[in-house]
């Protein structure tokens, strides 16, 4: 079985099992929605400076959604020693990680597709900049959260305090990506400011951490 086929089957397996159980999407989506609603109670952006702040709220909602979802990614393999079985398949561990990352990125993008319109409605915002460039930011930012988050989820899944530990690991490592997505989102909302440089930062972040995660995943799985 080729590397790509293995990756795809893992991703398809995760998508299928999620489509059947909806174990994580429903709760994650509702949670992120609550974050947006609660924040829109607390403030309504009127000036450009406040619109800039709103982009941070959007990404906080995505971040919470991502963390609560990624936490389940390996947890779902606990029954019947599924993770053991996956490791016994004649394919490299990095294919397992990549497949899971693809599935998780799809889940998160799906949630974001629902959350973004609601965000624009709740906060009375619209994109003054190019939407297509922002979609690239969204994809790159989502991947940045998902690749590190899935990697750390594999470590924390067997620990008692996994739900607490995952954000403790993911948040500090994601600081550069978060700065980049929040700034790029603000630039797109306001239609001014540097967008290109933040896309470059995101690409660099994604390339570096995807490489590291794929290289180290085999090692990390030994411990689980």
């Amino acid at each position, binding site marked *: 079985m080729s590397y790509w086929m293995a990756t795809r089957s893992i991703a398809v397996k995760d998508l299928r099992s999620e489509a059947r159980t909806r174990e994580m999407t429903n709760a994650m989506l509702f949670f992120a929605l609550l974050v947006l609603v609660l924040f829109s109670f607390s403030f309504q952006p009127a000036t450009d400076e406040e619109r800039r702040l709103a982009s941070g709220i959007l990404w906080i909602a995505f971040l919470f959604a991502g963390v609560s979802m990624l936490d389940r990614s390996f947890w779902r393999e606990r029954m019947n020693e599924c993770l053991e079985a996956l490791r016994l398949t004649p394919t490299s561990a990095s294919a397992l990680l990549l497949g899971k990352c693809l599935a998780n990125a799809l889940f998160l993008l799906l949630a974001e597709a629902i959350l973004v319109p609601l965000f624009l409605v709740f906060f009375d915002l619209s994109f003054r900049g190019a939407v297509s460039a922002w979609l690239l930011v969204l994809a790159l930012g989502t991947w940045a959260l998902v690749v*590190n988050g899935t990697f*750390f989820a594999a*470590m*924390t899944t*067997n*620990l*008692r*305090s996994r739900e*607490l*530990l995952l954000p*403790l*690991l993911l948040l*500090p*490592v994601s*600081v*550069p990506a978060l*700065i*980049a997505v929040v*700034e790029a989102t603000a630039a797109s909302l306001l239609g001014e400011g540097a967008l290109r*440089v*933040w896309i470059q*930062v995101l690409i*660099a*972040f994604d390339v*570096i*951490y995807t490489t*590291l995660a794929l290289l*180290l995943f085999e*090692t*990390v799985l*030994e*411990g*689980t």
Partner: protein
Amino acid sequence: MRAQGVLPRWWFGLVGATGIALILGVLHALWFAPTERTMGTVQRIFYYHVSSAWTAFVAFFINFLACLAYLKTRRPKWDAVAVSAAEVGVIFGTVNLITGPIWAKPVWGIWWTWDARLTSTLVMWLLYVSYLLLRQFAAEHPGQRVWAAAFGIFAFVDVPIVYLSIRLWRTQHPGPVIAGGEQSGIDPRMFLALHVCFAAFLLLFIVLFYWRYRLEQQRAELAELRARLQRLHMDRLA
């Protein structure tokens, strides 16, 4: 089994040397170095502030090398080096982050600003606290050491990216700048004071690091002895 756990003689010598160096550092920082013209006496905290930052960087760099060495060789001693360096590094980082605002309030008029250097130092400190938390949460778990080593590499790689992104972020709004002169030429007595303090902190780092490292080794030995005892009991029962 050889009874270990006694710290070597050189270590006690080093403790003495560190004590002398720290006293020299106080004398230099508070007495020999001249008072800075615009900032006054409060500037003297600079000697401790900068020394602790440099020492923390050294510690985190050692942690990174030890993480790589552990993943390569899987020898527990590299893991012990990594955790000792990270713990002591976090202490020096804490000293740095506490002394900074004490100096900033009278000089800048604010305790804190989100400028590149401050923010990246804070994020670096957070990353290594996360590293220590991961170790604590995963204690007793067979994966603890490889996970910690992997996270150590993730954390170290992050530091330059954090610095870069925050510099990009804050270039439009530069924070208050040190009132000239610090980088562009420093009084030779100040230069000496800074380096005496840095040397003293490095010695203190070595003392604390080695102490912590021995503790880690002793813990491992204890765990092994306990496991043996357990096996002995099992054999007797069988």
